[in-house]
């Protein structure tokens, strides 16, 4: 699996672009299975690096969304409220929220596409 190189990744399986758009990875949606519910914060909410900011539910499981970096929510993908399956169809296009990144330097701590790919393979292999 090759992951888009236009963004960074977390070990909790989120991605974030340079302009602060956040979603979950293809690997994450595959592990979750059929996604039926996405709960996201309101515009204006401050989110904190490493802390949960929302929830994704599949038929069988509930998973927290963790903030890749700190920032303030500027937009929410409202379409996911009625069509959460879009995340299964194209996880790298079905974004969750956009944030105004508080400290761009926090992005440096995140994984590159190839490092994330390696991380996922290692996780699967253990």
């Amino acid at each position, binding site marked *: 699996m090759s992951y888009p190189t236009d963004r960074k990744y977390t070990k909790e399986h989120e991605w974030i672009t340079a302009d602060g758009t956040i979603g979950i990875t293809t690997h994450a949606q595959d*592990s979750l*299975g*059929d996604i*039926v*519910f996405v*709960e996201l914060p309101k515009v204006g909410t401050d989110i904190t690096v490493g802390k949960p900011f929302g*929830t994704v*539910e*599949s*038929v*069988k499981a*509930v998973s927290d969304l963790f903030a890749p970096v700190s920032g303030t929510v500027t937009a929410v993908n409202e379409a996911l*409220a009625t069509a959460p399956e879009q995340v*299964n169809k194209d996880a790298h296009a079905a974004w969750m929220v956009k944030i105004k990144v508080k400290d761009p330097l926090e992005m440096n701590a995140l994984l590159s596409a190839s490092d994330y790919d390696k991380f996922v393979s290692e996780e699967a292999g253990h």
Partner: protein
Amino acid sequence: MSVVEATPVIRKTALNAVHRQMGAKMVEFNGWDMPVEYPAAIGCGIVAEHMAVRTGVGIFDVSHMGDIRLAGREALAAVQHISMNDASRLAIGQAQYSALLYPQGTFVDDVIVHRLGEDEYLLVINAGTREKDFNWVRDNTRQFDCKVEHLSDNFTQIAIQGPKAVDVLQKLTDADLSAVKFYWVTRGTVCGLKNILMGRTGYTAEDGFEIYIPPDEETSARVWYEILAAGKEFGAVPCGLGARNTLRLEGKLPLYGHEISDTINVWEAGLDRFCKMEKPDFLGRAALEKAKAEGVKRTLVGLEMVDRGIARDGYKILDEGGSEIGYVTSGSPAPFLKKNIALAYVPPELSAIGATVKVEIRGQAVKAQVVPTPFYKRPKKA
């Protein structure tokens, strides 16, 4: 001093390699390494598997289920003593839903009792309670002239479920399945294997069969693939424990450790119609009589979420004032009904159809309503 803990042994069914080969997502369930769902790439996933069973046919490996055989002159008396339903009503070849109870009227397990012969019964029990159940049955039937055998490892058990299940299995057997009524069994040749037990039973609230074949890997895999091939024209897919759970939940079929347990009694669980108080004395009867006179303090109800949110196992039920009054035993999106449903224990005064309660979901009180159950009932055949 150090405490040495025994390494838990994860058990595998004879079809384990097949599941892995098919790309199933595997999980540990009651000490078993089992498929939870098969990949989307082969038309699977919990929702697709669930829908296949409701509209066509799905195939499940249920070899983790246990089997106990009771045979001998006093087999009926033994079964009557340890189970709550009336096994004397069973004709040879007939099966019934029942339960093993502790003296306090709570559940050792729920079981399907099959009468296989004049003095021969087969109890099909849950995976997580196999050893406990066998010990319980053995210890509580010592006074009867009846042999008790643990046959759990003697079979690979495959469930073929859905409105097209009968058509699929009929292609593979010489037995006339149209003559087998729901909750009856027959024997016949299946995939060339002689004298195979086939029960018209299941855990999906759908028509279907469960077959008991030899437990070696080669035979198990061959039969598995032959069933899938025979089912291809009906859209058959392999199904995992994920769909098994959502299917049984729509049908309000209890799951041990959730709707029933060693702290929940028969009346609370609403299984009255499977408990025959008028039959000769049985374990748990005296306590149940007392419990009935006292009245229940909680009762199992079906809930449908009114507001946005999914109730999950263990979530709290709150009253309008926000006080905790019960809990969710099983909760999930219902793929066929396309609603978020749950089973929950609540006080009897809030159990009427239409009553509203709140489910605590991540700190929020989300509105739900008591609805008739089962949530799903299969359409009667014309």
